[in-house]
């Protein structure tokens, strides 16, 4: 049946770029934290040099991230309401506590690491892993609870967010390690075998991320009509350049190829691949948040 929309009201978008940036920064923080615990929590000595960089990144990023929430909310001076009027059904309430506990744990963990107290570092590192997973996983729940938006309302959302957090965390770590070794270390020498290990790790986590995105889109394509609309928006609509080209081709497939084919693998391609991944995951956050709410509801 032909039909014409003559008049309708669509209000301003609910979440926007600030929320996307916030999700991106918590993701980077959680990813960096998990990398820093490889040596100090699980005893993988080859990753020891990531420990201190990781914990500093995790703490700094997680202190910046909530500032974007304050920019987003309409009445920032009422932010204390979040700690007084609690609604334990709301993921944002879970988050307001995680956002306090997690940075404190990061600071304590980092303090013991710099004091070379192995045992305490290990304890706080292991406490930090569930916290890091929750502090980013809960942002997935924020979106998943938006039950009217087909792109968000999936149980895959928290795990998709966690995997992309690890992807972006590893890529950022590669870049930071290169800068640190090149300019701030005593020998000015880059630890290439470590980077190569990180690169391989990154490549395989990218594959898992691609798999999850693929699952999500395939199911959307055969689900109810709003879900099909949003899948077509990503695959052939306004978000097609961002989703297919930037996020998945440039942000995942190209870096994977650069990192996995031995002939391409060197320091320069590793920098390019990591930069592409870091940008690609930011675009992923943007596409999920803004794309998800750009289908009219009524």
């Amino acid at each position, binding site marked *: *049946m*032909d*039909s*014409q*929309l*003559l*008049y*309708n*009201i*669509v*209000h*301003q978008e*609910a*979440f926007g770029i600030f929320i996307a940036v916030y999700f991106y920064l918590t993701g980077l923080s959680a990813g960096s934290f998990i990398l820093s615990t490889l040596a100090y929590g699980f005893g993988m000595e080859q990753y020891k040099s990531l420990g201190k960089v990781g914990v500093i990144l995790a703490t700094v990023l997680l202190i910046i991230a909530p500032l974007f*929430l304050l920019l*987003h*909310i*309409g*009445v*920032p001076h*009422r*932010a204390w*309401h*979040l700690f*007084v*009027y*609690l*609604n334990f*059904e*709301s*993921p*944002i*309430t879970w988050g*307001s506590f995680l956002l306090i506990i997690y940075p404190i744990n990061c600071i304590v963990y980092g303090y013991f690491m710099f004091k070379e107290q192995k045992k305490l570092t290990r304890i706080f590192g292991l406490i930090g892993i569930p916290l890091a997973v929750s502090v980013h996983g809960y942002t997935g729940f*924020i979106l998943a*609870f*938006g*039950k*009217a*938006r087909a792109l968000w309302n999936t149980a895959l959302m928290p795990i998709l967010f966690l995997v992309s957090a690890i992807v972006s965390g590893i890529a950022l770590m590669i870049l930071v390690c290169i800068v640190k070794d090149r300019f701030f270390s005593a020998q000015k020498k880059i630890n290439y075998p470590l980077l190569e290990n990180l690169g391989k790790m990154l490549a395989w986590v990218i594959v898992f991320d691609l798999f999850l995105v693929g699952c999500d889109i395939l199911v959307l394509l055969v689900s*109810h*009509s709003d879900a099909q609309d949003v899948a077509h928006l990503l695959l052939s609509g306004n978000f097609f350049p961002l989703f297919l080209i930037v996020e998945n081709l440039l942000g995942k497939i190209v870096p994977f190829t650069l990192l996995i084919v031995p002939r391409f693998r060197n320091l320069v391609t590793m920098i390019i691949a990591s930069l592409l991944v870091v940008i690609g995951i930011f675009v992923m956050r943007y596409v999920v948040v803004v794309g998800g*709410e750009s*289908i*009219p*509801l*009524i």
Partner: protein
Amino acid sequence: MLIDLRKCIGCNTCAVVCKSENNVPLGVWRNWVKRVEKGTYPHAKEYSLPVVCNNCAKPICVTVCPVKASIQRSDGIVYVDPHRCIGCRYCMAACPYGVRYINPLTKIVEKCFWCHHRVDAGLEPACVLACPTGAILFGDCNDPESEIAKALAENAVQVIKAELGTDPRTYYIGLDQEVIDTKESKKE
């Protein structure tokens, strides 16, 4: 609330009177009349769909509000406490009906709450009173003697997006799924 679309003439009186009753700023609306044309000339018809908050019995906005600013009263009306809302807009993101907006002046979230200030004073909501054709009925559905309970019992009624399980309580008589689903003009 029960809206009889057979009586609705699409005059927008409900939208205008709500603006003046509730001091709704420019650019945002608590209720509005969606208009859709179905078919092509000479077999075409224009449909009106007044959209208001459903004041759902199982409201997702109340579930997700982190500061309990969106609350459900004992009579079922869902409203936003303007002194508590922090403007995080999570309820706007979660609401399946897009009826919430951020007030451009105060930056807090507002929506239709069936004029609870008038209901508390024993009056009808402004849109119900103003509707020139009497298309909107309002009252206590649990009271079998009320006009709305009788109308609900005697007519086939529909709600918008029943499948989402929010248990919406704005009922319609003569609602067409095509009118809900038309989000942009389309030709087939």
